[in-house]
């Protein structure tokens, strides 16, 4: 793609400096909306653009903003920068290299939500990045791009950075809010959704970093420009994080709907060491595995197409698996990740991930038989659809799909533990 819309630093390397960002049209969008548009106008534009949440669920951002209950204040905006999904590293690049576009997105979202305070929730390991963001925010305050009565209008905004403490589950929006409130990071029962009762029980918009980074260009160039990119239902550009057994891992900004083949072979340079591709994890650990058939490779990476072939786009972190890998080994790694990260609030996930891990260990130690693989499958099935949040389902769906699609790998591991 010629021009980067999100990874703009690839075209303008110094865009992380405020004056460079400003001289390249930075904060024009914020100024425009604050001076010329109502919050509802902004919500309408974003809804028309078709922008969908990039944090995993793909929920239309404009629709979510429209859910804020009338007349209830204060409201908050929270940028979800917890980025903990295995193989996902897009938000980090955006925040490190193109931070002001993200911050401008936060500000526009806050204007639309009529929030005076926005938070950026960074995963605990992002502490250095968090400090950088804080100094960027200080610059914005100095330049009166944040603060009271912005652009001479009755809109005030401040942004604060909050550091998590190292839990994957705190990327789930309601666990994130609990964590921000200083409580144990466990998801809340939904409904109520954060838009109705979020941070401190107030209406709150939670959006992913990448989602928000899309907002300034949408305002600058219009909804029609934006929804001409990508597919009909999955509009716009997406940063795909490519990793695993691939020549050139990294982030690639491509229109939604780009095929796996194009990403992996054209951009990623194919599979190293003369190996061939065996499988694809399209969304880190959190979506069912796909065997790398021709049909799969030619599938467009968008929300609808992936659902059609029995997986999910999630956060768009594509992990490539070559033929040297036993899928049962991979499944064990992923299960042990989920076991470690399960918050423990609900029974199926807390107990189920632990039980599955034990079966995997037996498999590894040569203590398991084919019947244990059936048991594993049955345990995973018994978790599916019963959990309080999506993490438990991710964990179970992974094992179910691994066994369904690569049973022979499990049988082999049962035999020799490899």
């Amino acid at each position: 793609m010629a021009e980067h819309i999100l990874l703009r630093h690839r075209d303008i390397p110094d865009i992380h400096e405020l004056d460079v960002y400003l001289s390249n049209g930075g904060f024009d969008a914020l100024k425009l909306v604050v001076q010329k548009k109502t919050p509802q106008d902004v919500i309408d534009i974003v809804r028309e653009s078709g922008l969908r949440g990039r944090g995993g669920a793909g929920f239309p951002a404009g629709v979510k903003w429209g859910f804020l209950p009338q007349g209830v204040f204060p409201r908050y905006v929270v940028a979800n920068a917890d980025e903990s999904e295995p193989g996902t590293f897009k938000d980090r690049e955006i925040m490190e290299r193109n931070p002001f576009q993200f911050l401008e997105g936060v500000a526009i979202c806050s204007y639309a939500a009529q929030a005076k305070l926005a938070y950026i929730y960074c995963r605990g390991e992002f502490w250095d990045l968090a400090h950088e963001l804080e100094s960027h925010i200080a610059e914005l305050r100095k330049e009166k791009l944040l603060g009271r009565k912005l652009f001479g209008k009755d809109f005030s905004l401040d942004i604060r950075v909050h550091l998590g403490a190292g839990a994957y589950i705190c990327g789930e929006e309601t666990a994130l809010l609990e964590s921000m409130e200083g409580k144990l990071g466990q998801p809340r029962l939904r409904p109520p959704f954060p838009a109705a009762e979020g941070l401190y029980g107030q209406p709150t918009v939670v959006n992913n970093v990448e989602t928000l980074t899309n907002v300034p260009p949408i305002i600058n160039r219009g909804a029609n420009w934006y929804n001409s990119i990508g597919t009909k239902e999955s509009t716009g550009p997406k940063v795909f994080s490519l990793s695993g057994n691939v020549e050139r891992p990294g982030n690639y900004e491509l229109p939604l709907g780009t095929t796996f083949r194009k990403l992996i072979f054209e951009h990623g340079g194919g599979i190293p060491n003369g190996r061939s591709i065996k499988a694809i994890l399209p969304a880190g650990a959190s979506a069912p595995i796909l065997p790398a058939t021709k049909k799969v490779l030619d599938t467009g990476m968008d929300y609808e197409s992936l659902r059609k072939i029995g997986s999910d786009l999630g956060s768009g972190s594509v992990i490539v698996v070559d033929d040297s890998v036993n899928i049962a080994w991979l499944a064990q790694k992923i299960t042990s990740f989920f076991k470690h990260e399960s918050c423990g609030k609900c029974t199926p996930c807390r107990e189920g991930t632990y039980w599955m891990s034990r079966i995997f260990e037996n498999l590894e130690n040569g203590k398991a038989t084919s019947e244990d693989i059936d048991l594993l499958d049955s345990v995973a099935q018994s978790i599916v659809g019963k959990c309080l949040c999506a993490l438990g389902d991710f964990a179970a769906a992974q094992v179910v799909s691994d066994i369904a699609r690569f049973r022979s790998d499990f049988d082999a591991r049962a035999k020799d533990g490899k």
Partner: protein
Amino acid sequence: MSQALVSLTIDGVEVTVPVGTKIVDAAKQAGIEIPVFCYHPKLESVGMCRQCLVEIGRPKIDRSTRKIVRDKNGDPVIEFGPKLETSCTTPVGEGWVVLVNSERAIEGRRQVIELILTSHPLDCPICDKGGECPLQNMTMAHGPGKSRFLYEDKMHLAKHVPLGDLIFLDRERCIQCARCIRFQTEIVDDPVIAFSERGRKLEIVTLSEPGFASYFSGNTTDICPVGALTTADFRFGARPWELNATASICPHCAVGCNTMLNTRREARSQGRVVIKRVMPRQNEAVNEIWLCDKGRFAHHFASSEERLARPVIKLKRRGRLTATTWENAVKFVVEGLQAAHGAVLGIAGGRASNEDLYALHRLMDGLGGRAVLHDQMAGGEFVQQAGVGPGTNLADLGSGDCILVVASDLHEEAPIWWLRVKQAAERGAKLIVANARPTRLDAHATHILRYDYGVAAHMILGMLHEINHQKELDQYASAETKKVAKVVSKANNVVVFYGSEGLDYAASHDLAQNCATLLAASGHVGRANNGLVAVWTHSNTQGAWDMGVHPEPGGLAAALKGQKAAYVVAADPAGDEPLLTSLLEQVDFLIVQGLFLTETALAADVVLPAQSFVERDGTYTNGMRRVQRFFPAIAPNEGMRADWEILSAVAAAMGIDSARPSAAAVMQDIAAKNRDYSEVNYPALSRNASQWPHVGGKDIYFGGTAHPNHQGLGVQLTPRVERQKDISFDWAAPRKIAHKPRYLMVPITKLYDRGTTVVQSQVLGPRLEILRLYVNPEDAERLGMIDEGEVEVQWDGRKQRLRSVIDEHVPSGAVLVPRSLGVPLATAVDVKIRPIAL
């Protein structure tokens, strides 16, 4: 208030319930049981355990017309979702079809229980909960017969983790339902336990020092759906199925919580029947399904080894006490009383039952003497007139209502009232807390009023002024009293709790009178959920007033003047006030009836061993004037008699009255004589009504192990204003407050004092209060005192050395000392304080 209703079918049964009812409760009302673990009807739903999964079908809605789609028979088309849903979090919807016992739902729940069991040790044979365990019952009913989870794969965790002195955690058994944490956070606002870690490592930890510091901790062991939480009192003590259960009433404070005494005959106790534990018995109008830890853990005194077991008499003054037969003892008593020729005084404590108090009153009356209560708080007659009426339940108070608490620290004096008042405030009731110092209830108050110790009654006059605009009251009004008076007069329902902190007999009398007048003037008497409640220091003080036994305005010293004989029942005046010892010794003939050889008993000519409340039947009338019955749980030692029984025998021997055969018969006498009690009789006290939430069914997981109430909810007395329209109320002429003393030493109440009933608890020991003098920081500086230093306090010609603690919550000019810890102080006194150099 009518509520919108919703109809739906659950397993084919049509049910109609109020909007917002959770499916699990709707099913329960239809007699369909859905297993739950994390859900508890008294707690907010959290949907954690996932045990209550059901299939929910909703009428299909046409997207364009937004109308219900109908099939060719005109019936709504029902759509079922792809997932099972938690019935404990989902409120009912009109026309829904819920399937609890469909194949899919049953299989789903079977899978969840199997998952729960993977981590559970299943050590039922050695588990305290075995026999009354929801998990055990559910596993038997719905669980798999065989484990698919390898035993060696189980995670093994610590089994004896103390969460403080009272509650122990078995980490292996915990199923992480968070009922305990949520109870502490949502219901009692003592968030002292929490989860730490995550996933399978999730663990309950205590955050307080000392551990699990809450007056309500025992309740978590009732609602814990497994045997993960046990009490220091009961753990490993017995198996639930070996226990007998006897209904009783907590004797420790004026709330009158309904309890169940679990007893067992055991070799360990030389073949005696002993109390193994005290459990809450449901009475939604009194204690719901809760108890405070004092009620639960301070029962050991009743079966103490130190109990008096035989009558003893002293043949010579200052002679030795020698054992005798009951026959002799009664003869001796009769002779002693005859010799007094009517100069007799009965002295009773507020722990005696109505029957005892009535019998004492009757005897004294017959002898030409009188009976008084050993207490210094007054106002019982105003509670009789303007008390809360039948139908009162603090749980009904909320938005639009108002509660005034004055001169009482409810958290320490009546914990369950504190809890329920706090909850009413959380439901939106206006809460006015008035006291000379901050108390814990302040945190939930909408209005806080401060006054100087002693002038509580004046502050109420200030409020009254706003309502009756009487000129004389001008001087007591302030901006604050004006504001809260408006709140009171605007409220739909008003309940006033008055106590006696810092007040003597006269001051508490005035306070009660003014509160009653305020209630009457603002139209808040004579109906349910309105009226005056006394925060008495004992369980049956109100009953004593009702039986005609009240404190003497001048105190016992005045009452004893000129008496030749005194008859003390269920009280230890000499123990409470050593100065009374010589006065008691001065009467010619002193009779003491009680449980222990107290200071008063040591001075007596006859000591008669009484049965404790666990050995006999009787009734108490609580501070809200609900008469409640307790039953014999333990066969008494042969040498002991019930107080009423002894008194009735003496009265019979003296030809005053015929002996009464039973406590029930005494109650019949009471009903015949006392208009207020005309409807009270033992069968009426034993009447029940169905209560929500259901507890005690085979689904004990629903409400916990609190016992259901089959023994009676008691009778709420009708306040006299409801009957007698001619009662009028007027405020008490304000008393002049003499000088403002330099230092006023004020006795305050602490729940865990060292009174006889508490100090014998086998588990509360580490939690008992320590005697300290609490001093304001500025006063401490003025006096040259240091924190944890030693001071000498002088009053009324006595001296005592005390350790002092500097505490900013103490009002300046006052020093506070907890009652029943060694400083004999009935009411506030002027003191001199001198620090002692180290």
